[in-house]
């Protein structure tokens, strides 16, 4: 019997699910170092890497069954726990670096800002090692398992750009997984929901529904819209919009609450040290979930131990009230705002410390409003008949944040307010492992063709920078034009030849290629040239030397045709073709960035 694997390579945690030709998906237990002296299995592998100091593990420390080198680094539960005490030696959220366009994603930059570790890692290497760990763990728990690359799906945030997708595929290849397929996380969550409601999902959705997949995890928020059309059980699903990459999630909420509690204690003369604050964040998270899930509870008492062994004398008591959680988490992160609200684009400071581009505005509902407004703008551009307001009437929640019922209710309340109609929740989602489960189900669907597939094209339109041919003016670089090479909504397996136009390509010399993207220009067709690329979002830049084709010498300009293709694996490939010789160069998006 064939086995299909879905890998959730998450920002905070990884998980794997597997499923057979039929039957229900299983979560694969993941062997990992769980304490300084023990190995164990957990269903989640924290996406953390801890790099110990020299001599910290004189005997090599706990050893994974498949690794011979020991004590150099750890991944998983122990890494996260030990790393919390030595933040300079902890790599976390590497995935957010993977899609950070201004970071050198192949360069050794992590742990970011650390001066303690002797050897740093690249974001790509972190992804590779996490995938190796997952792969070895599967082999260890079931030695007979064969991971046929055609049966493996890895999920990425819907907001991942082409460069980050390419890097994820490359990490999979380097990890020995081969040519795997990518799937957007919100779609995976939706596939998991379809699978778990196989018999009755058609009762919950119907023609004309627009479903928001609202995924708010520990550190990221990701939105997608899925439309439902058709009749009588013959429904078609299409992913019609994806949001931007938002570094905003449950961790922000816990941190905000911890500050509130800490300030309250400060007012009574109790000052918490850094380690107490660390344990306060954890305590506050539990307290928040309790308060948000139990409407009858007005406050919870928190106990914050010191690191001293004097637990009785050193434990500080604090309270967290329902009103505080309501004000900070519900009203702070999910304020009731107008449909036209827009989040702060950036903090007012002129100079920002380098690092991850965290969302400047904590109000998730404002980001949601912006996402829906942009989705509507894109839809209006691409369709001839003006549609009504684009607002979802059903929501599939995913991510740990929505373990709190009050937050789900608030999102539904806001959507109902915007549309004037009641928005409902798609019941029975399982937030912890839905993404891995959905990926496994999708892997099976791809191979067997059995099941309903969500139609989805590229979420954005892609452009390549084109130097305009204009008269030279001293001191002015000519404006860069943008050539659309892949329109929004381009589907898997489809390709475009930008016909009738040829472009000049410099060979044998270092040339710079710039890439741009947009998620609001759905009307642009492949081959269209925009006069000013600066209106678009620049996604990647690469420098490379194209070797001259036979019969041409370096430095020569050659005429080329441009072709683009979305592979079966879901990534965008771009080719330069030299018609006289038929020579073809593939442009890799995932090249060294500045």
């Amino acid at each position, binding site marked *: 019997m064939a086995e299909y694997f879905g890998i959730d390579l998450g920002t905070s945690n990884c998980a794997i699910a597997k499923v057979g030709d039929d039957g229900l998906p299983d979560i694969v237990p993941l062997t990992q170092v769980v304490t300084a*002296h023990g190995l164990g299995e957990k269903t989640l592998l924290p996406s953390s890497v801890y790099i110990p100091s020299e001599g910290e593990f004189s005997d090599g420390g706990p050893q994974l069954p498949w690794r011979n080198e020991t004590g150099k680094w750890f991944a998983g539960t122990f890494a996260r726990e030990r790393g919390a005490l030595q933040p300079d030696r902890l790599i976390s959220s590497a995935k957010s670096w993977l899609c950070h366009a201004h970071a050198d994603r192949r360069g050794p930059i992590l742990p970011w800002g650390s001066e303690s570790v002797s050897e740093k890692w690249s974001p790509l290497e972190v992804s590779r090692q996490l995938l190796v760990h997952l792969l070895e763990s599967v082999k260890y728990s079931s030695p007979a398992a064969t991971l046929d690359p055609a049966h493996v799906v890895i999920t990425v945030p819907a907001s991942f750009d082409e460069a980050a997708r390419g890097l994820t595929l490359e990490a999979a290849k380097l990890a020995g997984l081969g040519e795997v397929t990518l799937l957007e996380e919100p779609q995976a969550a939706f596939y998991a929901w379809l699978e778990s409601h196989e018999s009755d999902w058609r009762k919950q959705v119907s023609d004309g529904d627009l479903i928001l997949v609202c995924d708010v995890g520990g550190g990221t928020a990701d939105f997608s819209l899925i439309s439902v059309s058709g009749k009588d059980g013959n429904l078609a699903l299409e992913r019609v919009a994806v949001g931007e990459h938002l570094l905003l999630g449950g961790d922000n909420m816990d941190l905000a609450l911890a500050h509130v509690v800490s300030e309250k204690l400060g007012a009574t003369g109790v000052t918490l040290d850094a380690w107490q604050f660390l344990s306060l964040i954890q305590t506050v998270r539990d307290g928040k979930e309790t308060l948000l899930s139990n409407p009858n509870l007005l406050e919870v008492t928190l106990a914050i131990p010191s690191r001293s*062994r004097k*637990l*009785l004398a050193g434990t500080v008591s604090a309270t967290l009230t329902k009103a505080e959680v309501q004000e900070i988490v519900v009203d702070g992160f999910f304020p009731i705002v107008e449909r036209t609200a827009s989040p702060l684009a950036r903090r007012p400071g002129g100079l920002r410390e380098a690092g991850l581009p965290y969302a400047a505005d904590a109000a998730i509902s404002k980001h949601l409003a912006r996402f829906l407004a942009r989705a509507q703008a894109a839809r209006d551009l691409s369709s001839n008949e003006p549609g009504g307001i684009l607002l979802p009437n059903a929501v599939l929640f995913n991510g740990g944040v929505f373990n709190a019922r009050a937050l789900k209710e608030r999102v539904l309340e806001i959507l109902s307010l915007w549309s004037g109609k009641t928005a409902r929740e798609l019941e029975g989602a399982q937030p912890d492992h839905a993404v891995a489960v959905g990926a496994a189900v999708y892997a099976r669907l791809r191979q067997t063709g059995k099941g309903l597939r969500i139609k989805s094209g590229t979420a954005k339109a892609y452009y390549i920078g084109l130097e305009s041919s204009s008269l030279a003016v001293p001191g002015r670089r000519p404006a860069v034009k943008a050539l659309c090479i892949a329109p929004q909504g381009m589907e898997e397996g489809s390709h475009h030849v930008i016909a009738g136009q040829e472009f000049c390509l410099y060979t044998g010399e270092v040339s710079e290629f710039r890439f741009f993207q947009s998620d609001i220009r759905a009307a642009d067709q492949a081959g269209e040239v925009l006069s000013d690329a600066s209106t678009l979002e620049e996604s990647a830049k690469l420098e490379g030397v194209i070797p001259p084709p036979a019969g041409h010498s370096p430095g020569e300009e050659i005429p080329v045709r441009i072709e683009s293709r979305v592979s079966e694996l879901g990534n965008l490939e771009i080719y330069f073709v030299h018609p006289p010789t038929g020579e073809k160069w593939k442009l890799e998006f995932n090249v060294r960035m500045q």
Partner: protein
Amino acid sequence: MARKLLMGAGGLLLILNAGAFFCPDPQLKAGIEIASCVLGLSVSVLAAKTSEQPTSVQQPPVKQNVSVAPEPVVIPAPVPPPARAEAEIVAFLALLQEHGRLVDFVREDASTASDVQLGAAARVVHSGCRKVLSDYFEITPVHSGNEGDTIVLENGYDSAAHRLLGTVSQQPPYKGKLLHPGWLARSVTLPRVTGTTEQRPWPVLAPAEVEVSG
């Protein structure tokens, strides 16, 4: 997978399934011959018990196979020396200390502490130990009924999972009031101890912590 279900007694006693020996076959990770051990909430009781009886936890003798045909000689692959039961127990206690500060709590003098202090500390112990139990054990009641229910134990009832109080006749059935529904550890997935040596046969219970300033 060899796993005995161990029964919980009532009250404060927590009976755990102390998985003891590292299985030579790495695939049977959790397949460990079980030696059961009672761990009270009092750590000192446990410490005394294990130190008094250092050889109480042993691998059971291997049954001799009475087979007619001679078995082919199999050269066993080198296996790590079996971790001792004590190592597993100390490692478990270390987990309760790490997350629930149990050793700190029990070792501190409670006689001079106020109930407020004791209560605050108990919250730390409660939430941490609760997390450890939920992470590594699947615990369910022996009986699905409520305390105070009248129940009948028929002939052949699971006597290891029930403790009878009061006047007990020679034969079941027994009719009585359920005082405590009991606890069953349905599964145990404790970490497997690594890195023990002759010099350090079990892990450090809680490492000394040093805040580095230079």
